[in-house]
């Protein structure tokens, strides 16, 4: 680096170039692995055909999408999971984090480890565990019958309603602890004396939660909301391994259907690319809306 030839170059210029050299590999990889495929998917979405035999089709794929009953069902499912699961999970994570942030709480580390533990399981693994727990001859039915809550077991995964509920329960189980860790980290930046002062002024724990914790954690809440929205719109593993999209596509997600369209049935890359672009647009719109809403409360 400090070869005499380079001495001509000013120090700041040399540092500037070093900086570029450091970040170039990462930047090139992101361009080639994210932005280039994104553009290619957009081009693909206006074509139709099988394999290498592609023809221009204009907006045909996009029109087809909205008449495709399975895809519309998948879209509805993703939104159902999003609307129910994300708020429940984030509120639960916030409550747990603020409880664990209490200085006087005993066994804090144990509680935190237990609640965070589900994040250590792989998505396929926990999907299969939940599938087995909620099977007709599974543990949940056995327990409910033994406790005389049910007369006989429910076939959870065979009814659209209960199958969706199981997916939502599984998602909450898997991701609450993950979000809780983000909140816990955020809470550590809030000085504990703020809470002490609020308590002396007569604020109830509920009030200090809404008036101190939530506003100060706003950036973290925004971050977790965007991450969860993004994740929920891309659900795949759970749909494939917990319910296999069934019963008769009642729980299928968009990514699962796109996968089937591209790699399971006769490959239709053009149509699959069009559907994937809808996910992209939805993710972008929702992120924008959330950022706008997040800014407003200031």
């Amino acid at each position: 680096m400090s070869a005499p030839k380079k001495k001509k170059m000013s120090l700041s210029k040399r540092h500037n170039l070093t900086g570029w050299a450091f970040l170039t590999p990462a930047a090139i990889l992101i361009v080639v692995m994210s932005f280039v495929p994104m553009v290619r998917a957009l081009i693909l979405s206006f074509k139709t055909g099988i394999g290498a035999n592609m023809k221009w089709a204009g907006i045909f794929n996009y029109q087809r999408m909205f008449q495709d009953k399975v895809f519309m069902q998948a879209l509805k499912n993703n939104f159902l999971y999003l609307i129910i699961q994300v708020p429940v999970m984030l509120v639960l994570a916030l409550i747990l984090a603020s409880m664990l942030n209490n200085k006087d709480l005993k066994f804090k580390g144990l509680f935190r480890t237990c609640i965070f533990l589900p994040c250590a399981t792989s998505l396929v693994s926990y999907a299969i565990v939940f599938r087995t727990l909620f099977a007709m001859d599974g543990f949940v039915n056995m327990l409910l019958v033994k406790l005389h809550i049910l007369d006989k077991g429910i076939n959870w995964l065979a009814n659209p309603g209960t199958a969706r509920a199981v997916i939502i329960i599984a998602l909450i189980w898997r991701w609450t602890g993950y979000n809780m860790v983000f909140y816990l980290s955020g809470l550590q930046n809030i000085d504990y004396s703020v809470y002490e002062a609020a308590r002396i002024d007569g604020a109830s724990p509920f009030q200090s939660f809404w008036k101190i914790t939530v506003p100060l954690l706003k950036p973290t809440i925004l971050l977790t909301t965007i991450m969860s929205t993004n994740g929920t719109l891309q659900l795949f593993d759970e749909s494939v391994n917990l319910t296999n999209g069934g019963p008769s596509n009642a729980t299928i997600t968009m990514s699962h259907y796109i996968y089937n369209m591209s790699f399971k049935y006769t490959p239709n890359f053009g149509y699959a690319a069009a559907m994937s672009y809808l996910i992209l647009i939805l993710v972008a719109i929702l992120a924008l809306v959330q950022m706008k809403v997040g800014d407003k409360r200031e």
Partner: protein
Amino acid sequence: MSKGKKIFQYVFLTIVSLISVFPMYWMACAATNASVDVIRGKLVPGTYIVENFKALIASQNLGAALFNSFKYSIVLTLLSLFVCSIAGYGFEIYHDKGKDFVMTVILLAMMVPFAATMIPLFQMISSAKLLNTTVAFILPTISTPFLIMMFRQSARSFPHEIIEAARLDGLSEFGIFCRMFFPTMRSTYAAAMTITFMNAWNNYLWPKVIMTNNDTLTMPMLVANLIEGYVTDYGMLMLGVLICTLPTVVIFFILQKSFAEGITGAVK
């Protein structure tokens, strides 16, 4: 806080903890019991683990899947940590308008769902004749906006005096990164390692797309294969799930503390 509220808090946290741990405990028990006992709801570890293991290796190529998963995940983690940490460091320490702009563009990539890039990526990989290779597995996720952002954030807290002093001592810029930044940012690296390894190990969709033969499959694919047949040997199934989960759980316990610290740095 009143006593009633305190008790409520402990009861609530205990219930949530139990619910969080139970499915994993149940899985571990089921892995050591015969399928009949699992259905009967036996909740203590049994002695059937050897039979379950024999059934598992008889039906699936467990050795290959374990080896592949470790190989793909370790290679990806090492490369990814290096590429992203040096980039994050470069973005922060030498920042100027141009680099900040590039960072903004990179952050946009975070919004790109994998489904939207999956098909062209598959076409690129397959026309480069890279299907069923480690390179195919790692290429799309070596460089991730999330990790770059995390390292950029942690480089912000890296004292400039250290850099100046090291420069005076004649250390090259790359030397400063390796000998000064790397050792100081251990907890960020630990957090990044945990996240990257877990994501790599758990990745299911991408290997399912590019790994087309039985010798290149990964652990999550193997476990998913187990439920495709009609036979439900719960003991064997849960042993497969347990083996697939163990490595990430172990890493999680080893790195838990530094993981929390690293996230704290990233959220700030």
